[in-house]
């Protein structure tokens, strides 16, 4: 039996090793073939011209054109097959002139791409030639580009799987744990039953009294729940949690921390401030110059969304508001009581405080919520702790001097009246 198994195994391994050589050889050959094919392709174009064309193309054209996709203007692959070189050169040098001359192809192109005029470029004929050569050489590489695309897509898929895997394995672990507990429970029960059965068969000679006590002590869930200990602990925990939540609830009266209202448009700071790293000031333009940071008007949204994602339903809301000249009624998140005065520019422009200090991780919020308490204690605390940046500001020179004569502590907000009632309440 054993000898037959080893015989089979050696046979299989021999077949594999023989064929492995062939597989390796064919792989090598195919690689070499690919390499040589690539070389043949590249040899058709002068490398110097292609590389100078590439740098010109990337510096001037990629803004609006790509080889394989429509950007602002058409995709440029095989453009030399669609039109003559003279036509292309004339269009690059002055597209307006070509369109005005009534050239049918040019007029069609102009209308097809939203009547956007191509910028005129004063390239020399040599430069134009190198750009076109670069486009020709890129056009010939179609297949390779497709392969690269596939690889990129594959990478994305595998990464999404790996993040799913985490939850899958967590669930599996919990399931296995429960299964283990269940099996253990069943096993103890079964073994007890077995012992009792054996004991009965031997007419009670197998077990002495101590053993019997252990075997008979079943776990009775009803008695356990009704026992004084459990009732006492449970009611204590309940009352403690209940009273704690009551006190917490009372403390939050007048505090709107965690208020997260639904907005009329599902705007996400996570995408705009987080992913695309747009500065807060770009939209909240008032923050350095006025009391409030300002909610951006529709026209600021339109700076990008006049062009981007115009077909999505949430963006459509902006477009309609823009067309109707109607403001979007955002819901205010931070409602400081009217009895307290707060000025953004004073804190941001003068104090140099970052937005995140009070507003929290805005760049991670899909829907904005109130991060800080905005209570008086919270304000005062910061005024007690924050040092004043007096460097390069003449305004503070005498104050710093005066402060130094009476105290060894650095100059803080409280030292220049940051705790006076009338600074905020009047």
């Amino acid at each position, binding site marked *: 039996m054993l000898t037959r198994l080893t015989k089979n195994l050696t046979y299989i391994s021999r077949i594999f090793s023989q064929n492995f050589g062939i597989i390796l050889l064919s792989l090598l050959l195919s690689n070499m073939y690919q390499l040589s094919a690539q070389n043949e392709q590249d040899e058709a174009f002068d490398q110097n011209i292609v590389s100078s064309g590439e740098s010109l193309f990337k510096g001037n054209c990629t803004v609006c054109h790509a080889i394989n996709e429509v*950007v602002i203007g058409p995709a440029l692959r095989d453009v030399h097959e669609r039109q003559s070189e003279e036509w292309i050169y004339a269009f690059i040098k002055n597209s307006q002139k070509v369109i005005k001359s009534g050239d049918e192809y040019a007029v069609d192109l102009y209308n097809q791409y939203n009547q956007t005029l191509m910028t005129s470029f004063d390239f020399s004929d040599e430069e134009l030639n190198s750009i076109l050569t670069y486009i020709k050489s890129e056009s010939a590489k179609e297949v390779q580009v497709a392969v690269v695309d596939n690889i990129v897509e594959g990478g994305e898929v595998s990464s999404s799987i790996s993040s799913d895997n985490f939850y899958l394995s967590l669930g599996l672990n919990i399931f296995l744990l429960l299964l283990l507990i269940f099996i253990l429970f069943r096993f103890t029960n079964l073994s007890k039953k077995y012992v009792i059965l054996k004991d009965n068969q031997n007419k009670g000679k197998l077990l002495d009294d101590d053993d019997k006590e252990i075997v008979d002590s079943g776990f009775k869930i009803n008695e356990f729940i009704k026992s004084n200990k459990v009732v006492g602990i449970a009611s204590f925990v309940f009352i403690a949690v209940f009273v704690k939540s009551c006190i917490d609830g009372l403390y939050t009266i007048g505090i709107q921390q965690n*208020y997260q209202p639904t907005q009329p448009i599902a705007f996400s700071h996570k995408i705009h401030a987080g992913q695309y790293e747009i500065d807060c000031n770009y939209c909240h333009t008032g923050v350095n110059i006025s009391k409030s940071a300002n909610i951006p008007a529709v026209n600021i949204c339109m700076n990008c969304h006049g062009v981007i994602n115009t077909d999505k339903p949430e963006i459509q809301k902006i477009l309609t508001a823009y067309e109707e000249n109607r403001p979007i009624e955002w819901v205010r998140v931070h*409602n400081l009581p*009217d009895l307290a005065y707060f000025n953004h520019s004073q804190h941001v422009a003068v104090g140099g405080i970052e937005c995140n200090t009070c507003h929290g991780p805005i760049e991670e919020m899909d829907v904005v919520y109130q991060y800080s308490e905005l209570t008086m204690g919270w304000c005062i605390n910061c005024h007690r702790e924050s040092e004043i940046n007096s460097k390069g500001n003449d305004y503070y020179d005498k104050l710093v001097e005066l402060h130094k004569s009476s105290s060894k502590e650095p100059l803080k907000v409280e030292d220049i009246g940051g705790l006076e009632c009338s600074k905020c309440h009047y």
Partner: protein
Amino acid sequence: MNKLILYLFIGIFFISCSAKDDYPGVEYAPNMYHSVPYEPLSQVKDEEIGSWLDSNPEDGHGEFYNSNPYNPYGMTMLEPVPNTVKRGGYLPYRIHKDSFEIAALVKSPIEDGDEVLKEAKILYDRFCVHCHGEKGMGDGSVGVVYKGVTAYNSRAVKDKPEGHIFHVITHGKGRMWGHGSQISIEDRWKIVKYVQTLQKQ
């Protein structure tokens, strides 16, 4: 037993005081929280809100109503009166958005200097960098997705005069929309200075 249930209910009432999601939470002294005069950026259009504690029944609406019936959409903010000029600043820039030739002749009122460039860099990082990129190559985080962002040193724009740059910031050009409403005239001229340094690289 009844007493116990009562305590339970009072407790639940207390617990529900805190703000969460759409509910802003219980206010301690609502009359002092809500502004009586028109408050910019906070608008209550529902006349019923706050009618349970109306301190002035004659006005015909609830305590928290804060909305100007004479403005469009009841807004509490207004644009400046048309054709008025702000005191102590620059005169408004009134060259038509298509008049690039005239705009190109306008000269910057800002003096050159390191201090100006430093401020301009800060402004550039606020308003321009996400599209035009750190070095003005059009490769900012948004620019890559937005597409069609011209590099400052590309052949088409690297020799454009300061007036032209200012005009493009104000009114936009091509795919770029005008930024005149969100950047002050002075700040726009400062940004022009910084953009000129990027043109030359």
